[in-house]
């Protein structure tokens, strides 16, 4: 194959197969290694490795998502489980091997993008290549003779090739179109890199915090107010957008079979020194304040209790958030109270929105909505362990230094009912509030991600649907005054459609001089 034909048929910036380095080239092995890394074959291999490496993450529980299931899994699999843990099979997407693969892939990608972009920019400025000597050897070609001078034939051909980039060299015509295919392909690959940059940006400067808010209360977007925070490595608390959110009311509706229909948190929010505004915070409908987004993640019940001292003095008057345990919202509650005389009480039990008791007198809930609410508690007295200064979870009760009241018999309270405890103190279940679990995220990469997403989809569409193709025409007038026209063409993809297009072009050219 002639050099010229080879050049004429290159319709892509695809890296060429790797060649052996010349002898005596000191940088040869390095250069060879680099060319290997940025070759299509390596890219392919790395893509398969990436898919393969993700598979354990698709079957095994992952610590980042569900640490409890991971712990269970390891416990039930003994030595094998521990070995798998050492292989980072429960942290696949943060593992050394997964990271190595995608980093290599992106190094390869960046390494092949530079030469490809340069080649493509050159192709964009270059004129379509010269007409190959033998057009017959192209995948599609045609030849015919007409009466008339060659340059008139070329003029006809030129008008048939409207929309193509055409270059005329004497009585030869080179035409090309579909450059956008390669442009799209490059945009796609570059956008993949931009996407990675966005991910990195978020993992350095992002922030995520969750907070449980009971109806009638609120929070402000400062670090200390969150129950749980996940700041990124380079995140600085001063970049938290200042605003406050107050939960006015929470509504949930359910179908008769207990399936949830809607969740809706009615909040009032305001910026620092701003005027308060109402907002309907729902799933799929977050509150956006600057770069901060507030989401509704979950909800539950908070029975409102009043604790009174022996002499009837109100010690505590507040809703207590209970944590849901099943789809019918059977929820566990813990209440800790310290009376004025130094006596301490701890309560542990369940809240049931629609209470049912089975044959063995166990309480349960048969529906997630509030139909027959009850607070069923067991009480302890003694030392709550809250005076030592060590922080305690408000959702756990340590009864090691306590004695069960009534030998641990449970007491079921309905709204308005009071439990008078031995010694005279009392606990009243007043009514039921609800709580919402809110999450605030600040993601500085949102715009970058949007650009990347558009580039990826747009680039792909161009890359897969635009067809790059070339057509050449040569006209030569013989001694007898007739002109022989030779036409040939080449497409990189979809030969069938190109053949049809080519036939139509030839038809156009021929009919001009019929």
């Amino acid at each position, binding site marked *: 194959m002639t050099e010229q034909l080879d050049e004429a048929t290159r319709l*892509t910036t695809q890296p060429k197969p790797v060649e052996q380095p010349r002898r005596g080239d000191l940088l040869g092995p390095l250069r060879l290694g680099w060319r290997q890394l940025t070759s299509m074959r390596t890219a392919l291999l790395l893509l398969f490795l990436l898919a393969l490496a993700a598979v354990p993450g698709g079957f095994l529980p992952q610590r980042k998502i569900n640490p409890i299931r991971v712990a269970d899994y390891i416990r039930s699999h003994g030595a094998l489980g521990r070995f798998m843990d050492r292989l980072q099979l429960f942290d696949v997407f943060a593992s050394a091997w997964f990271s190595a693969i995608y980093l290599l892939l992106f190094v390869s990608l960046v390494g092949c993008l530079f030469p490809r972009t340069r080649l493509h920019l050159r192709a964009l400025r270059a004129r379509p290549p010269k007409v190959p000597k033998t057009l017959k050897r192209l995948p599609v070609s045609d030849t015919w003779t007409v009466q008339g001078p060659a340059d008139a034939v070329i003029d006809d051909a030129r008008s048939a090739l409207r929309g193509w980039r055409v270059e005329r060299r004497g009585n030869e015509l080179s035409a090309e179109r579909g450059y956008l295919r390669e442009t799209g392909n490059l945009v796609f690959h570059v956008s993949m890199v931009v996407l990675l940059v966005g991910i990195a940006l978020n993992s350095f400067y992002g922030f995520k915090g969750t907070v449980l808010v009971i109806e009638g209360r609120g929070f402000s977007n400062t670090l200390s107010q969150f129950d749980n925070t996940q700041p990124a490595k380079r995140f600085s608390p001063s970049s938290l957008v200042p605003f406050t959110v107050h939960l006015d009311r929470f509504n949930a509706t359910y179908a008769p079979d207990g399936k949830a229909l809607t969740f809706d948190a009615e909040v009032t929010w305001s910026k620092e020194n701003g005027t308060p505004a109402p907002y309907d915070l729902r799933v799929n409908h977050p509150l956006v304040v600057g770069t901060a987004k507030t989401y509704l993640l979950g909800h539950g019940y908070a029975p409102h209790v009043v604790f009174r001292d022996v002499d009837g003095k109100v010690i505590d008057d507040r809703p207590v958030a209970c944590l849901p345990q099943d789809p019918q919202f059977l929820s566990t509650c813990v209440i800790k109270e310290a009376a004025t005389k130094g006596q301490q009480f701890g309560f542990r039990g369940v809240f049931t929105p629609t209470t049912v008791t089975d044959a063995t007198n166990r309480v349960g809930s048969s529906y997630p909505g509030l139909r027959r609410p009850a607070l069923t508690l067991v009480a302890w007295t003694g030392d709550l362990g809250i005076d030592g200064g060590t922080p305690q979870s408000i959702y756990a009760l340590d009864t090691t230094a306590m004695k069960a009241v009534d030998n641990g018999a449970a007491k079921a309270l309905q709204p308005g009912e009071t439990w008078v405890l031995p010694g005279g103190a009392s606990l009243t279940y007043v009514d039921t509030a609800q709580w919402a679990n809110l999450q605030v995220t600040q993601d500085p990469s949102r715009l970058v991600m949007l650009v990347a997403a558009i580039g990826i989809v747009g680039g792909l569409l161009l890359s897969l649907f635009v067809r790059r193709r070339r057509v050449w025409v040569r006209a030569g007038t013989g001694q007898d005054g007739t002109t022989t026209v030779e036409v040939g063409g080449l497409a990189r993809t979809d030969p069938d459609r190109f053949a049809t297009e080519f036939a139509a072009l030839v038809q156009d050219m021929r009919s001009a001089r019929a």
Partner: protein
Amino acid sequence: MPDKGLGQLGDGLLFSAVVVYALAMLGYAAEQATVGARRRVTSVRAASQVLVGSGGSVEVPAETVTTVAPSRAGRAAFVLTCGGWLVHLSSIVMRGFAAHRVPWGNMYEFSSAVAFVAVTAFLGMVVRGRIERGLGAFVMLPVVLYLGLASSLLYTAAGPLVPALNSYWIKIHVAAAILASGSFLLSGVVALLYLLRQRYDRIGRAARFPVTLGAQLPSAAALDRMSYAVIAFAFPVWTFAVIAGAIWAESAWGRYWGWDPKETWSFITWVLYAGYLHARATAGWKGRKAAWVAVAAAVALVIDYYVVNIFVVGLHSYA
């Protein structure tokens, strides 16, 4: 509230569609059984050199172009497929009216829609001359099995959506996922047929069932082009679906991507199809190896929908 009567009508229509598809499958099979008698070699293209991008030229073996005279059974099967398609379409529309929402809110509806896309893609490509009608038997068989399994194992009566799904993103993200999945599954079938045909070409007369089926199939090169055409269409759609899913996850859960099992398998599927496209562009990976990648990717897709939804715990499990 959902309309029970319309819901049952929709279920009945889906059942009828499966029956009509099954009849069509028999028609195609009958056509295939007599294909030998109606085969005509119409033209022979000589061995020729075809230019390739980087490395000069390759020999393309002589390709005999054969045509098969149409049979009455085949034509009837095609008409039946179109009829079944209409019934299938009306069952999906009926579901939407019954539930007052888009008809793809649970796995049962989703499976029906995916099968519908696969049949639509098949019919569309037949009409445009990009796929051969004769493949009908091989397309209808998985469609019938799939719809049968989906409507018995995954059956869900028409009802409202759970709140997490209640967003306009379900229209965008899930519609794109269905469109891509139906096409990918079709391409998986065509890739398997390619492998069958290719194996038949290699071992020829020594072949035993099921490789002997290869004799009835279009040429390996044609099958390869068909599966590429379908994947080239579906890949950007799938990419869009995954991105739309990430945007939805961000507005529902406050994060784009969390490597939830469903997300992980969508990612694996996506990477495998990207691998397929690269493989086709890389010398030495064309043909058989690329076809195996297409099959593996389709398997990953099935895992994504069925194994993950049914067996693996995650946020997405909305069975």
